[in-house]
C-alpha cells in the first residue's frame, strides 16, 4: 500500500515539475510556433523573420543592454528577436546554442563570441544552412562570419585615451596600462594604437613604463594595480582599457588616498565608475553605448537577411536612428563601426549610471 502511495507521489511530483517548467515557457513557444508556420515557406517575403543574438553569458549588465538594443531594432523592423546567453562564458555552451538555433531555422545569428576560433565549425554549419551570421562586440574569426559589428573605432579608442591621460597629468610623467588578458584581441589593438599615439613628439615627456594584465578578474586587477603603485613610486597616470580593470584601479587609488596624485582614465561602465568620477579619482573615461551596439547589430542582421548588404567592403545601409552605415575592411574580414567612443565625466555620469 505504502509502495503504491509513494509511486503515485513520485509520478505526481514528476508531472507537476515538468508541467511547471512547461507552463513557464508557455509564452515563448506560443510566439515561436506562430511564425514557424510562415517561415516554413522561406520564399515568402512577408514572413516574419527570426533573428537571434547570443551573448557571452547571463547576468552581465553590459550584455543585457546589448541584447536589449538588438531586440529594439528587430522589433522596429517587425521581426522576432531571440535572446540567448549561456550560464557559463564558454565556447562549448555557445556551440550548443548555435545548434539549437539552426534547428529552429532562424534567419540570422548575431554572436558575441567567447572564443574567436572555436565557433568556426558551428557557425559554418549555420551559414551552410542559409543562416546569416554576424558577430558583435567580441569578434569571431573572419571565416566564421559575414561581417563584424564593432563597438567603436579601435584607433580612436586607443588615441583618445592617451590624449586624455596626457591632459590629466599635464603632458609629463610615467604612465602604465592596466589591461584585461594578454590575449584579449580588443585590448591589444587599442594598446597598439596608444603606443602609436605616444610616438608623437608632443608626448616626449610621457613614458609608458609597463603594460600589466588583470585578466578581467577583480581581485587580480586590484593586486596588479597595487603592485604597479609600489614598483613605480613616481607614477602619474593609469590607463585601464577594461571595465573591470578601471573599477579596480579606482578602488585602489581611493583606498590609498592617491586622488589627484595618480590620474586614471580608460574604458568603464558608468554604473560602476560613477562613484570614482564623482569623487574625482578619475576625471573622465570612455565607453560606447552597448544599447547602440546591439541596435546596430539588429539592423545589420536584417539588412543581411533582406539582401541589402552581403557583408562586402563598401556595402551601405541605413541603420535606423543611427543613420547611414558602411562596411569597411577589418584584416581579412569586414566590419561596421559604431563610431567614436563616448566620453563620461562628472557632468553626465549621473544620468548614465542609471542606464548601464
Amino acid at each position, binding site marked *: 500500500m505504502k509502495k503504491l502511495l509513494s509511486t503515485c507521489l513520485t509520478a505526481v*511530483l514528476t508531472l507537476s515539475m515538468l508541467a511547471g517548467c512547461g507552463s513557464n515557457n508557455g509564452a515563448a513557444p506560443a510566439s515561436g510556433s506562430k511564425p*514557424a508556420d510562415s517561415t516554413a515557406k522561406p520564399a515568402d517575403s512577408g514572413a516574419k523573420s527570426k533573428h537571434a543574438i547570443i551573448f557571452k553569458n*547571463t547576468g552581465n549588465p553590459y550584455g543585457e543592454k546589448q541584447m536589449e538594443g538588438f531586440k529594439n531594432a528587430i522589433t522596429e523592423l517587425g521581426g522576432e528577436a531571440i535572446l*540567448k546567453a549561456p550560464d557559463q562564458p*564558454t565556447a562549448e555552451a555557445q556551440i550548443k546554442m548555435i545548434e539549437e538555433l539552426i*534547428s*529552429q531555422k532562424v534567419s540570422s545569428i548575431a554572436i558575441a563570441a567567447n*572564443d574567436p*576560433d572555436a*565557433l568556426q565549425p558551428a557557425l559554418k554549419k549555420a551559414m551552410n544552412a542559409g543562416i546569416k551570421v554576424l558577430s558583435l562586440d567580441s569578434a569571431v574569426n573572419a571565416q566564421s562570419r559575414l561581417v563584424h559589428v564593432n563597438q567603436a573605432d579601435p584607433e580612436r579608442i586607443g588615441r583618445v585615451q592617451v590624449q586624455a591621460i596626457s591632459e590629466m597629468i599635464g603632458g609629463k610623467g610615467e604612465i602604465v596600462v592596466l589591461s584585461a588578458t594578454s590575449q584579449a584581441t580588443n585590448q591589444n589593438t587599442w594598446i597598439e594604437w596608444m603606443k602609436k599615439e605616444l610616438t608623437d613628439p608632443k608626448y616626449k615627456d610621457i613614458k609608458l613604463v609597463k603594460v600589466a594584465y588583470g585578466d578581467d578578474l577583480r581581485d587580480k586587477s586590484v593586486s596588479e594595480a597595487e603592485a604597479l603603485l609600489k614598483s613605480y613610486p613616481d607614477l602619474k597616470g593609469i590607463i585601464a582599457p577594461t571595465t573591470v580593470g578601471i573599477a579596480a584601479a579606482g578602488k585602489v587609488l581611493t583606498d590609498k588616498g592617491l586622488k589627484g596624485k595618480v590620474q586614471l582614465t580608460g574604458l568603464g561602465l558608468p554604473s560602476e565608475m560613477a562613484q570614482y568620477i564623482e569623487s574625482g579619482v578619475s576625471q573622465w573615461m570612455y565607453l560606447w553605448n552597448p544599447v547602440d551596439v546591439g541596435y546596430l547589430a539588429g539592423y545589420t542582421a536584417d539588412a543581411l537577411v533582406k539582401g541589402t548588404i552581403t557583408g562586402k567592403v563598401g556595402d551601405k545601409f541605413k541603420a535606423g536612428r543611427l543613420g547611414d552605415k558602411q562596411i569597411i575592411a577589418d584584416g581579412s574580414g569586414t566590419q561596421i563601426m559604431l563610431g567614436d567612443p563616448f566620453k563620461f565625466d562628472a557632468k553626465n555620469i549621473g544620468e548614465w549610471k542609471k542606464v548601464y
Partner: protein
Amino acid sequence: MDARTLQHNKPFSVKQFFFQWEWLLVVILIIVNVMNTNLSPYYWNFESIRDATMSFLDKAFIVLPMVLVMILGDIDISVASTVALSSVIMADLYHRGVPMELAIVICLIVGTVCGLVNGLLIVKFKELSSVIVTLATMIIYRGIAYMILEDQAKGQFPEWFSFFGWEYVGGVPFILIAFAFFAVIYSLLLHKTTFGRRIYAIGNNSTASRFSGVQVDKIKVIVFALAGLMAAVTAVFLTSRMGSTRPNVATGYELDVIAMVVLGGISTAGGKGRMIGAILAVFLIGLLSYGLGLVNVPAQMLLIIVGLLLIFAVMIPKLNRAKLRKP
C-alpha cells in the same frame, strides 16, 4: 536480476522490478520527449535529435567510468581538468610538429596517467578522501594546462580531425556510435565480470572486501585510470568539435558528469546503481536541455530543473528503503 546489490538471491518480484529508479527515468525521458514535441515544432524530427546528441555526448564518455568510481564509494572531480590538460598537450604537440595521429595517442596516454596519479595518491594516502585528492589534482592539472598554453588558444588542426566531432557514419553521428560502443563495454565490465562484482563489493564494504582477498587498491587504481582515459577521449571529441582548444576548456564538466551519475540512480555512498541508469540520465539531461534550448528558455531555468531532478533522485531510494524496513 543482476549485481545491483549483493543480495541478489531474492526471488524475482514483478513489483520490485518495475519500482526501480531506472524505470522512472524511462518514464521521465518519455515525458520530456512528449513535452519537447509539444513545445517546439522543430524538436521531433530525426535530424534535430541526431544533431543534438553531438552537442551533449562529449562529456558522456566520462559518465561511464564515473559510475564505477562512485560505486566504489569514491568521487573524481579532476576529470574536467584532465580533459583540459590532455587537450592542451595534444594541441601543443601538434603545433610543435608531432603528427596529429601520434598527438591523439599521447593525449590518451596523458589522460590515463592523470587518472593513475589520482588512483595511486588515493590508495597511498588512505587518510585522505578522494574528494580532497582529486580537488588537489584538479587544480594541478588545470594549472599545468595554463603553464603550457598560458592564455592562448591553439587551433588549425588537420581537416580530417573534425571527423570526431562533426561527421556521420551511415547517417549516424560518429560520436554517438563511439558512445554506444563504450557504453556496451562499460556495462559488460560492471555487470558481467568479476571485476565489476568486486567494485560493488568494495563500495558496500571495502574492509570486508579486503579481508576476503579482493585487491582493493589495485581495482581502485584501475578504475581511476579508466576515468582519466575517458576524460582524454572526451578531450579528443571536444577539441575536434571546437576546432581549437584553450586551458579553460571543459570548465564545469565534472559537475555535469556527477549530476548525470547521481540522476542515474548511483548511490553517492557507493555500492549501488546500474550503468543503464547513468546512460538514461545522459540522454534525459541532454534532450531536456536541447528541448528547452529550442524554445529559448533562459539557461538558469535548466539548472533549476536539473537541480530539482537531482534532489528527487537522491530522495527516491530513501523513500524506498524506509518502506522496505517495515513488514
